[in-house]
C-alpha cells in the first residue's frame, strides 16, 4: 500500500490515496467543524463550515470535498477561515430558535458544538421571525422545520442509504425546505419510517417522539427479522428508552428498519406481558407459583412415552434456548418429535 504525505497545521501525516482532507484531519485528531458531513454519505460541500486554506490554492476549499494530494499543506485555523466560518454560522443561527435549554437536543446538538467551537456568544444578524408548521403526522418522529438548518443530511440519507427518496429540498433560496413529494405530511408520503434520517439530523428538526436520554447502553440483536441487525438499547431506570443501530455489526452497519428502531420497547414493556405461571382450573387459567407449575409439568410429561409427546420450539428464541429444548426432547422425553416454524 502506498501512502500520501500531507501537512495539516504543521503536522506531518500519512493517508491512503483517495482520502479527503476532512477524513485526514479527523484521523489525525484535528477537529474541523462541519454540519453536513456524515461518514455514511457522499461528501456534499453544502454547509461550507469545513473550509480550510491549502497552500497554492486561491479559494478556500471545503475539506470534505478536497482529496489529499502528495505534499499538500493544509491550515485549518487561519484568520480568514475563521471569519468565513463565522459568517456561515451567523446566517444559520439568524433564524434558529435558540431555545437551547428546553430543546430536546440540548447537549446532543451538533450546531451547539460548532457554535461553541467558534466562540459564538451572541446573534450578529437580526432575527428573522418565521413560524413554520410542524409535521407531527408520523407516530415515531416529528419534523419541526423551525429547527432545520438545510444541511440535507436527511434527504441524502433517504436517497443514498435507504433508496426510498421520500423527502427532498423543495422551493428555492429563502423558501427552501425539506419536504415530501407534493409537500404532503410524512404519513401520506412513501416514507418507510426507518428513522435513518432522524438518526443523522444534527439538530432538533427530526427527532424521535418519546425519546429520553438513557443512562446506559447495551448492544444486542434485533428480535424481528432474519437480517440480524445489531442495536444499542438505551436503558434508564430499568426501562428501554431508546434504540440505535450498532455500527460494529457487518449485518447492518448501523442501519435499522422501522420495526427494530421503533418497535422494541412497546412490546417488551407491554402491560399484557405474562408475568406469572398460569394453571387451568375448572376451565380458566389462574395464576400459580413456579413451584407448582413446574412440578405439574414435570409430573404430567413423565407420564407419557416419547412417541406420545411433541415439542414445538421457537425461531424467536435464542440458540441456547433451542439447544436446550432439543436436548430435553431427545434425552429426557425420549422423542425426536421436535420442530419449529422454520418451514413457515
Amino acid at each position, binding site marked *: 500500500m502506498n501512502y500520501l504525505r500531507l501537512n495539516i497545521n504543521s503536522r506531518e501525516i500519512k493517508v491512503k490515496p483517495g482520502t479527503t482532507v476532512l477524513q485526514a484531519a479527523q484521523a489525525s485528531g484535528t477537529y474541523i467543524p462541519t454540519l453536513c458531513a456524515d461518514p455514511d454519505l457522499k461528501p456534499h460541500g453544502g454547509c461550507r463550515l469545513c473550509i480550510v486554506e491549502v497552500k497554492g490554492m486561491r479559494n478556500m476549499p471545503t475539506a470534505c470535498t478536497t482529496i489529499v494530494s502528495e505534499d499538500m499543506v493544509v491550515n485549518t485555523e487561519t484568520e480568514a477561515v475563521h471569519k468565513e466560518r463565522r459568517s456561515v454560522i451567523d446566517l444559520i443561527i439568524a433564524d434558529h430558535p435558540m431555545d437551547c435549554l428546553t430543546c430536546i437536543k440540548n447537549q446532543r446538538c451538533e450546531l451547539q458544538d460548532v457554535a461553541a467551537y467558534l466562540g459564538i456568544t451572541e446573534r450578529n444578524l437580526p432575527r428573522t421571525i418565521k413560524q413554520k408548521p410542524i409535521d407531527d403526522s408520523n407516530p415515531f418522529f416529528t419534523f419541526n422545520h423551525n429547527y432545520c438548518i438545510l444541511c440535507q443530511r436527511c434527504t441524502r440519507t433517504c436517497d443514498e442509504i435507504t433508496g426510498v427518496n421520500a423527502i427532498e429540498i423543495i422551493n428555492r433560496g429563502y423558501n427552501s425546505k425539506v419536504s415530501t413529494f407534493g409537500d404532503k405530511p410524512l404519513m401520506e408520503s412513501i416514507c418507510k419510517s426507518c428513522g435513518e434520517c432522524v438518526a443523522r439530523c444534527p439538530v432538533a428538526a427530526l427527532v424521535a417522539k418519546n425519546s429520553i436520554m438513557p443512562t446506559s447502553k447495551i*448492544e444486542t*440483536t434485533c428480535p424481528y427479522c432474519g437480517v440480524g441487525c*445489531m442495536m444499542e438499547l438505551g436503558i434508564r431506570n430499568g426501562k428501554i428508552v431508546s434504540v440505535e443501530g450498532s455500527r460494529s455489526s457487518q449485518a447492518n452497519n448501523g442501519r435499522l428498519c422501522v420495526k427494530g428502531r421503533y418497535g422494541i420497547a412497546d*412490546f417488551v414493556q407491554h402491560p399484557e406481558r405474562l*408475568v406469572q*405461571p398460569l394453571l387451568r382450573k375448572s376451565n380458566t387459567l389462574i395464576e400459580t407459583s413456579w413451584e407448582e*407449575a413446574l412440578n405439574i409439568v414435570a409430573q404430567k410429561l413423565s407420564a407419557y412415552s416419547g412417541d406420545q409427546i411433541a415439542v*414445538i420450539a421457537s425461531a*424467536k428464541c435464542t440458540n441456547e434456548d433451542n439447544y436446550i429444548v432439543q436436548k430435553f426432547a431427545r434425552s429426557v422425553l425420549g422423542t425426536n418429535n421436535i420442530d419449529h416454524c422454520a418451514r413457515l
Partner: protein
Amino acid sequence: MAGLATTFGSGAMTNSNNDLLGANCIFSIGSNTTETHPVIGFNIKKATRSGAKLIIANPRHIELVRYADIWLQHTPGSDVALLMAMMKIILKEGLHDNSFIMQRCENFKPFKQSLDDFDLTTAETITGVPLGQIVEAARMYAQNGPSAILYAMGITQHSHGTDNVIAIANLAMLTGNIGKPGSGVNPLRGQNNVQGACDMGSLPNVCSGYQKISEPSIKQKFNVAWGINLPTEEGLSITEMIDSILQGRIKALYLIGENPILSDPDAGHVRKALSTIEFFVAQDIFINESVELAHVVLPGTSFAEKDGTFTNTERRVQRVRKAIDPIGYSRPDWLITCQIAQRMGAKGFDFEQPSQIMDEIAKVTPSYGGISYKRLDKGGLQWPCPDLKHPGTSILHTQQFTRGKGRFMPLRYKPPAELPDKDYPMMLTTGRNLFQFHTGTMSRKVAGLNSFKGEEEVEIHPKDAERLFLNNGDKVKVISRRGEITARIKISEASSPGVIFMTFHFAESPTNILTNPALDPISKIPELKVCSVKISKI
C-alpha cells in the same frame, strides 16, 4: 431448505448481506425484500445505484420493481417453469460456464435431458410471461456475473417448494455463480432466529449442526455426550404433529414461543388439535390464540431480558444481551426447560449461564466448534467456524461444495396442488407487510406500527373489483374449501387480475384458515403461497 442440501450439501445462505454490494446482477425471486428484510433491501438498492442489474420475478408489483431492469410477473406457483425456461435459453445460447460444470459439478446429463423435454412455448403459457422477457432475463443473469440470487418464502412455501429451490441451485451452478464474491444462492430466512433454531437441531431428523440421527456414528456421539440412548426413529414435522394429535397418537404438547393457529395452514384444524389434546403446556411472553388453550402457561422472557445468541440469515452468530430485568416473574426459556428437566430427574441441565450452554454447543457441533462468548464480544462469527482460531466463513462452497460436487437435479414442472376452478375462481397468495411481523405477537403490541397497518386488507386488481362490483373499503368474505374470513378490500394494481393478496398478521382475519396444508413431500413445508378462493360482498 432440503433443496440446497441435496444440490450443495448445505441449506444455508451461501454469501453475506454485504456481499450483495459486489454483485453485478441481482436476481430476486419470491422475495419482497424491502418489506420482509428491509436492511438487505437497502443493500439491493445501493447495488443498483452503483450499476448492478436487477431482475425481479414476483407475481406482485413490489417496491423493488421501481429499481429493476426487468420485472417478470409470473403466475403464482409457476417458478419452476420460469427457471427451466431461463436455463434452457442459457444452454441454447451457450452462456453456461462449461468449465465450472465439468470441474465442480456432477449429474449434468440427466439434468440437460430434462430441459430438452421442456418446451419454451409451454413456459410462456404456464408463467404468463412473454418469452422475449424470459430471454432477456436469462441473458442478463448469465452475462453480467458475478450474479447473486435471492429468494424467500415465495419460493419455499409451495407443495413443490423443494423443486423450486433445486431449480434455483441448478441455475447458479449452470452459470458458475457459486463460491465467489457477489454471486451465490441466498435464501432469506423469515424470523430472526430461524437459522439458529435449525442449526441447534430443533428439527425432527437432525441434532445440532445438521448431524443426522439416522447415522450410527452421530447417535453414538450424542449417546456419549449426553449419557443417554438417543431415540433413533425420526420425529414428526409440525404439520404431521397436528394430524397425529387429532388421531390420538400424540397426547402431550410442549409449545414454546409460537402461535401455530395463526401461522400454520388450515387454522381450524390446528385449533381443534390444540383444544382436544390431553396435556398442553405453553411457554411464551404473551397469551395468544394458541397459548390460551393450554393447561399450563409458563412466562418466558423477551430477548431484552436474557443473554444468548441469534444466528442471522447469513449464518452470523451474534450476541443477545440482557438489557433489563425479567418482567414480573418471567424466566429465560433455557432456564425454564432446564428446571423441568431437573424435576424429571435428568442430568446435564445444571447450567448457570447461557455461555456454558454455548460451550457445550461448540463441543458437540462441528460448525460452531470455534464459537464462544469471549470471541463474540469482539463481533459476530459466521459458521462454519470449526475451531477457536478460525475467522468464520463469509462465502460457502469456494473450493468445493459442502457435499463435494454440486449435484444437478433433473426437474419437471408441477402445478400447485390447488388451481382456480369454477367454484373457487381466484388465486390467493400470502405475504408480509413492513410494519407488522409474522403473527403480530410482538409488532401488534406497538401502537405506532398499528397506525400504518392495523387490519387485514384484501388486495384486489381493479378489473376484478369492477367485475364483482366492489369499492375500496368494502367488507368481503373470502372463502376457500377450508374456511372463510372477512376483511376489507383494497383495490390495487399490485397483483395481476385473478390473484388476490393477503398477509397473516391479524388474528381477526386469520388468513391461514383459508390456506392449503398440502405439503412439499421433502421439506414438509405447506403450500401457503397459493390456494383457490372466491369472494363475496357482505
